[in-house]
Every structure is written in structure tokens, then in C-alpha cells.
């Protein structure tokens, strides 16, 4: 599958990794629900570094859409909440 890390670009990640990524995603969700910024930052860093380590960057001139889109590395809980709102986040 193709994963985009916002601000960093797209990577191809083996589908076999999805179980592990789902677990990391669940941690992220739990931290967000609990409003625990520290745990959230840790979970996001863990998720992104796993994807970076396991993925292969795709060619810059590829026009493929991603299957999964991950928040940018410095995103706070508020930033991610903003990503989940309906308006305004993507300019233009």
C-alpha cells in the first residue's frame, strides 16, 4: 500500500505491516481520546518512524494517490483535530 506522511512524501509499505500499523494507530487514538499530549506525541513518533523504516519512498514523478495519509511529524493533538474538521485546512 502507499502511505503518505504529510510534509514528507509517499512511501510504499508492505501490506503485511498493516496489523502492526493498526496497533500503533489505536495507541494514537487512545492518547487523543485521553487528551494526553505526551502519549500522543510518542504514539505519532512511533507510528511515523515505523513507516519510515519499513517503507520505500516512491518515485517523485509518480502520480499515484495514497491509501493511507498520516499526520505530519510535528503535529500536536490540536493540529490533528484540525485535520479532522471539514473546512479550511487545505489551502486553495
Amino acid at each position, binding site marked *: 500500500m502507499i502511505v503518505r506522511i504529510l510534509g514528507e512524501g509517499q512511501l510504499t509499505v508492505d501490506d503485511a505491516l498493516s496489523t502492526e500499523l493498526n496497533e500503533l494507530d489505536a495507541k494514537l487514538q487512545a492518547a487523543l481520546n485521553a487528551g494526553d499530549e505526551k502519549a500522543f506525541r510518542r504514539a505519532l513518533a512511533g507510528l511515523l518512524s515505523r513507516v519510515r523504516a519499513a517503507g520505500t519512498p516512491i518515485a517523485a514523478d*509518480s*502520480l499515484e494517490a495514497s491509501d493511507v*495519509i498520516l*499526520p505530519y511529524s510535528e503535529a500536536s493533538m490540536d493540529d*490533528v483535530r484540525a*485535520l479532522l*474538521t471539514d473546512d479550511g485546512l487545505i*489551502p486553495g
Partner: protein
Amino acid sequence: MSVVKRVSMIFKAKANKALDRMEDPRETLDYSYQRQLEMLTQVRRGVADVATSRKRVELQMNTLQQQQDKLDRQARQALGGGREDLAREALTRKSALQGQISDLQTQYQSLQADEEKLTAASQRLQAKVEAFRTQKETIKATYTAAEAQTRIGEAVSGISEEMGDVGMAVQRAQDKTAQMQARAGAIDELMASGALDDVTAQPNDDIQRELDQMGGGHDVDRELAQMKAEIGGGEAPREIEGSAPGAPGTTSNGQAGQAADQPQTGDGA
């Protein structure tokens, strides 16, 4: 639904929203391409803005670093002259500057990282825009309207996602740059108003003045000692002999010379 699934879904929906409007799908290609070129300009401008900001922070960092070096030199100078109190004052002021410098260093690194990220994003987008342009011409030339629609959808959604991402990255960098510019502006203003001088430049002057006085004092002592030696020792007669024939008794110098000369003139005659 998980965070990642929601982010993915909403992001893609937003990225593609702008492109559903065209009646003729081929128009969508041209419209998208125009948007891509605009976005490229925008991201390049973003890179330039961040670079400008970074250079400004660098200049301020250098200025404060120079102040710090100066205080360090002054401390050494003061200590060499036996003025530990002055050395302590200089070092105290030097350490007060460290906070400012560390803060600027953090800003600098952050801006540098942003600049690198945006530069990379700009290159990625550039490559994709090139690829899109080629594909756009192929689609227009080769496919029927019905076939084209699917291919256009694929090409456009891929690049729309990239544009949404780059657009956000530029926005984030600009927000951050604006904040840092405001802080850098505040430091510039402080420097200009002299308020920061109370911590840096002004005290330096105090210390420097004292150091100068200290140095000056030494010079006076040295000169005095030298004069005493001259008057009391064997050096003195030669100089006085030189001036004596010109105007004996006409100046106070001459008088003093004569007075000191008295016991020796007999020797000379």
C-alpha cells in the same frame, strides 16, 4: 473510526473537492495544471521566506555571539589586572546573553529544517507537475472523452493530494516564519531602543571604561616611574644638556632644568 482512517478520508476528500467542478473532464486537466503551477510558485516563495528568516536569525545570533566574546575578553583582561569584581560582572553579563543565544539557535535549527523540508517538497511537486504535463497531453491526444475521464481522475487525484500536502506545509512554514519574524523584530527593536543594551552593550561600556581606566592608570604609574628614574638617574643630564644652550631660564622647564643642572654644569665646564 481510527485517527489515521479519518485523517486519510477527510484529507483526500478535501484535496479532490476543488476538481469536481469542471463539466468537460479535459478542462479539469488544464485547470489542475494551472493550479499546480501556482502552487509551485507558492512553495518556492515559501522556501525564500524561510531562508530570509533563517538569515536574519543568523545575523542576530552572530551579533549576540560577538557581545559574548567581547565580555569574555573583558573578563580575562580584568582578571589579568587583578580586578576580580569586574571580571565577575563581565561573566555574569555574558551568561545572561546565553539564554537569548540558545533561543535563537533553536529557532535557527527549526527554520533550517523547514527550509530543507520545503525544498524537498518543492522538488517533489516539480517532478509531479512535469509528469502530469506529459500525461495531460497524452490523455488529450489519445483518449476519447469517456476513457479520458478515468485516467484524468487517477492523475488528478494523485497530484491533488500532493498539492494539498504542499499547500499545508507552506502554510505551516509561513505561520511559523511570521511568528519568528515577530520575535526577531522584537529583538531588533530592543537592540535599537537600547533596552537590550542594559544587558549587553551598555554594561560592556561600563566594564570597558573601567578597564580603560585601569589600563590608563598603569600607564600613568609607568610613566611616573620612568620620569622619577630619569630625573634621579644618569639619563636625565643628556636631555637637559640638549635644551640648556637654547634658552637658559626662559621657561619653567628651563628653570627646573637649570636647578637640576646646577651640580652638573661644573662637571661639564
